């Protein structure tokens, strides 16, 4: 019985993954731009700017199907675990990793959940800003999770990914997307240098991501 159940969930996940990627392409015509990194089987943490629920779908739509199967997005448990429907979408359909943004019990420490996924051999999609950016700044301050993961699993590559335009397609508070062209720029890997502390590393990773931002379309020279 449980074999059948597993099979059904696997089928549901593949169908969701292919369906959503197809939908993302139909709406945004999304194109990956690899600048300094290439699609690879290597275990990675893709870290990206975050302003829309569509971000993770757009980013995974840019990965080849076999990599997408092994790449899981990190999502906030306090949002995606709130109702049964949200939990079903996040965990069973999208196979995201739910983490607690505020935690008191050591068991809830988000690092453990993320490390568990990495130790299974899967890659992660992480939004180090921690929440959707609603400010006028292009990129807000990074939380420290990225640094902790980088130090604890130094063999995992950290790839900065700039997601362009998705916040215009699906802004916070809307659930119907406006079709606009989107791109995801994948930059060269970032690593913690020896002796580099948390603050310096996060600043550098922040700058590396921001450097991928193309001149915003729809803005004058």
């Amino acid at each position, binding site marked *: 019985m449980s074999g059948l159940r597993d099979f059904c969930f696997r089928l549901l996940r593949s169908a969701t993954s292919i369906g959503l990627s197809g939908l993302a392409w139909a709406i945004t*015509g999304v194109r990956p731009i690899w600048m300094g990194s290439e699609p690879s089987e290597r275990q990675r943490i893709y870290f990206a700017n975050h302003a829309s629920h569509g971000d993770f779908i757009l980013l995974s739509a840019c990965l080849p199907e076999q990599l997408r199967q092994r790449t899981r997005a990190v999502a906030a448990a306090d949002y995606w675990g709130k109702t049964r429907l949200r939990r079903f979408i996040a965990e069973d359909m999208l196979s995201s990793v739910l983490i607690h943004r505020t935690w008191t019990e050591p068991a809830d420490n988000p690092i453990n959940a993320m490390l568990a996924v990495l130790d299974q051999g899967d890659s992660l999609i992480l939004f180090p800003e921690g929440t959707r950016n609603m400010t006028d700044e292009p990129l807000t301050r990074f939380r420290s999770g990225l640094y902790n993961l980088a130090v604890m699993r130094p063999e995992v590559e950290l790839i900065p990914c700039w997601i362009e335009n998705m916040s215009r397609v699906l*802004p916070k508070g*809307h659930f*119907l997307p*406006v*079709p606009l*062209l989107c791109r995801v720029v994948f930059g060269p890997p970032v690593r913690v240098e020896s002796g580099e502390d948390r603050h310096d590393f996060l600043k550098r990773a922040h700058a590396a991501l921001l450097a991928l931002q193309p001149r915003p*379309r*729809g*803005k004058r020279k």
Partner: protein
Amino acid sequence: MMRETTLLIVGLSAVLVTASLVAGFLTWRARDRNKPGLVNLNQRIQAWWIMVALIAIAFFFGKDGMTVLFALISFAALREFVTLTHTRRSDHWVLLAMFAIIIPIQYWLVWTAWYGLFTIFIPVYCFLLMPAVTALQGDTERFLERVSAQQWAVMLSVYCISHVPALLTLDVPGFEGRNLLLIAFLIIVVQGSDVLQYVFGKLFGRHKVAPSVSPSKTWEGLVGGVASASLLGAALSFLTPFSPVHAAIVAFLICLMGFLGGLVASAIKRDQGVKDWGHMIEGHGGMLDRADSLVFAAPVFFHIVRYFWTV
């Protein structure tokens, strides 16, 4: 109609085969096969094969096929246009309506041949209601710029392009059931003019028409391209209700409109600081890079035929 369709397919295939052979020969002879110009030429010809095949399929499905094809072209063009303009979060509903309401309604009006509403739906109703919705959102930051860009987007990408399938709604006496050939004439002449202007420009181009707008448009390309495309129009008069002389005059006018369309599109792109509208069509750029001339030519062609040839 069967005879003309067969001739069209044979003729277009012959042109594409010749183009592919010439490009293949140039590539084979070239010392550096990865020269950007050559790669682009080969990409362009490959894309032409695909575009001609898609239009042929739509042609085969008649009115339904053409209406759906051009609705999709409008969708792609509108998406490129809006992506390039300045939008704010408060524009979300208007932008959504442009794709989800205006495109379907406009093409439904074309499909049902409701001429009276088809010609005014966007220039009157959308023109007045879109800024009203934007104003109701209460966000006045760069208001005029935002609503103007929205108007331009739907006028060019939806209203103008919808005049291509609208040709099927015209009643030309003695031409019943053959209106699809008018679409073929329009597309072949206008796109042919683009290609011929490109060829004449590459071969003889010296004097730029508007150097601050587009470096690739030359007087030699313009005159050579438009003149030869007008002759092409005369040669294609058997597709149309026009006499050869009339066909040449109509072809001349739509080629001129097509040139102006390309010029305006270049000015918009330059203003927004981009080279191409998008990347949809390999070697050509975006949908609007290929369709800009058709955008300007289609409404004028529609009204010329309607005024002089319908009852």
